[in-house]
């Protein structure tokens, strides 16, 4: 028996450690910051009982009650920059501690666009496989030519070249997987201007979910590794690692499932996130890795990505 193989001819996909659930305790935007530390305290006070519920429910599901639950918090440094890490992070941690909450990991929103030199948003954009309307029998222009992604067929519109033609009759948009009636969703993924490309909030939030689910790879490697920081936060956001590990004894950042406890004002964003995630093709090898690990732990994982993501809206 002879055998011959060449390293570059084979795919090597690394696997990463996983918790059972990654709980997002909140999202911080400029307006929240401007509202002052009390707003944050109130938010954490509302979140705390839900975290406890998640914890109990997972303890019941896992053998010996050994549920691995990690918590995370996302700060926007992409759409607007405010304060500095050395000012803001201790304020968030204090507000959490007052409500007996431990934030294990802190992430910067701009990390969802690019982290440690890896263009994560582009990585995910390339993996979009658009939901095909009935009648799609071949290739279609990809969403990265328009920057929009829908879950169905848009209403027809008269183009510039059709100005002299009879008016196009209005027709309703339709959802591809409608049951009776449609809920048509059309999401803007990005826009371009003279400063370059700006990814939309739902698109970055979709990347955020994929990171938390541990489903992204760059050339087979995990694109983001949390970095432990013990106090002493920098003055510049760019100097803060994309994902910071704040709690030494935290279970892994990524998890089989995610739970986000969010204000209801994020409801629309999350509908858009789910519309995007329903159209992302995750590497088959990575999916198999995660599935076989969960099976080893006697855990039944949902087959579809979007079914591994849940929310509490407050």
């Amino acid at each position, binding site marked *: 028996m002879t055998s011959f193989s060449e390293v570059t001819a084979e795919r090597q996909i690394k696997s990463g450690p996983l918790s059972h659930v990654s709980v997002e305790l909140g999202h911080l935007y400029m307006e929240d910051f401007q509202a002052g530390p009390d707003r944050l305290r109130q938010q954490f006070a509302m979140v705390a009982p839900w975290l406890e519920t998640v914890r109990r429910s997972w303890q019941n599901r896992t053998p010996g009650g050994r549920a691995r639950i990690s918590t995370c918090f996302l700060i926007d440094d992409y759409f607007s920059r405010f304060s500095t890490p050395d000012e803001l992070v201790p304020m968030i941690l204090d507000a959490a501690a007052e409500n007996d909450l431990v934030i294990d990991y802190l992430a910067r929103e701009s990390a969802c666009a690019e982290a440690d030199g890896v263009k994560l948003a582009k990585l995910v954009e390339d993996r979009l*496989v658009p939901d095909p309307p*009935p009648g799609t029998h071949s290739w279609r222009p990809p969403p990265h030519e328009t920057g929009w992604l829908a879950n169905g067929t848009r209403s027809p519109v008269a183009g510039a070249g059709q100005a002299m033609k009879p008016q196009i009759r209005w027709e309703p948009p339709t959802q591809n997987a409608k049951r009776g009636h449609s809920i048509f969703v059309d999401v803007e993924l990005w826009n371009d201007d003279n400063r370059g490309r700006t990814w939309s909030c739902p698109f970055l939030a979709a990347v955020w979910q994929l990171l938390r689910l541990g489903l992204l790879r*760059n050339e087979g490697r995990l694109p983001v590794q949390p970095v432990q920081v013990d106090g002493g936060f920098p003055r510049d956001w760019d100097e803060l690692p994309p994902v910071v590990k704040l709690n030494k004894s935290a279970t892994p950042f990524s998890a089989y499932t995610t739970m986000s406890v969010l204000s209801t004002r994020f409801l629309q964003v999350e509908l858009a996130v789910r519309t995007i995630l329903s159209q992302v*093709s995750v590497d088959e090898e990575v999916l198999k890795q995660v599935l076989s690990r969960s099976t080893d732990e006697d855990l039944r994982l949902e087959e579809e990505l979007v079914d591994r993501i849940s929310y509490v809206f407050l």
Partner: protein
Amino acid sequence: MLIMGEVRTGLLQNSAEIEERDHQTVLGLLAGERVRMSRRPIVYAVSPDLLTGVDCRLPSASNARIRGVGTLVSRATITGGRILQGSSYVRVVRGEVNHRLPWSHYLARPGVVEVLGKVSAPDLAGGFLAFGPPGEQLDLGSVSDRFMDVVQESALLDLRAPFRSDRTRLRWVAETGEPGVHFILGESTGRTLRLTHHGEFSPAVVDLCEDLALHDWLLTALLTIVQRARIGGASRPEVSARLAPAVDTLLHLWMPGARIHPSLAPLWENLERTPGFSRQWQSLVERVRDQLAVNTLALLRETNG
């Protein structure tokens, strides 16, 4: 239930063989994913797999209205820095429900098209291999073609091919069963292949179909060059000049079964017995070399006066 695919094969539109280091750029169709390469016994590079979503009628020999929803897998390959292939395939299975499900259901099954309603594998295979007019039916070939075009659009290529050649189209269907292979050469550029193999489907079956398509294209291209050379009709220097691209570009690329999984090798061997690909190739190569030798001798005689 049934796997069907279509491979399109053609010459990379570049005057020279592309260099090893350029494959990553030319075939890098997906951010964050490397182009896989092997260098023995011939330089071969394959793009990452890409998915295309479809929801359409499936081919049917009896013209039945069969609707399928799911994704196709496609990839592009370059062999010997010269030959470009676009290849797409799909596994057709009976869906569990008769209505369309949310798209995330289909994305959890990459490369699978689920049929809404009844379907028979022989009817589907018959319809697909018949090369009917494209119409509204699933069109694997145009997806394969598209990926070839995307590769050809690379700025690294000078779009000057060393000679004119047609893209060939190979449609194949594969099923589990007693191993067997049935290859039909169509009148123009279409070929069909029916394949049965032991065990579950694996991408090794796709490798075999691509390898077969590649060698069928090589034979077709060499035959065309020899015909265009007008041996016996044109002057000796003209014949030599017309045969030269074959020597420069094609002759060293013949390596049937080089990357075939050992379990599928007997199928290639069957095709080597009938129709005997290598036999025909060898005879053509000898013809080209004999012509060049005779013409060189004639030239020497002329110069030595």
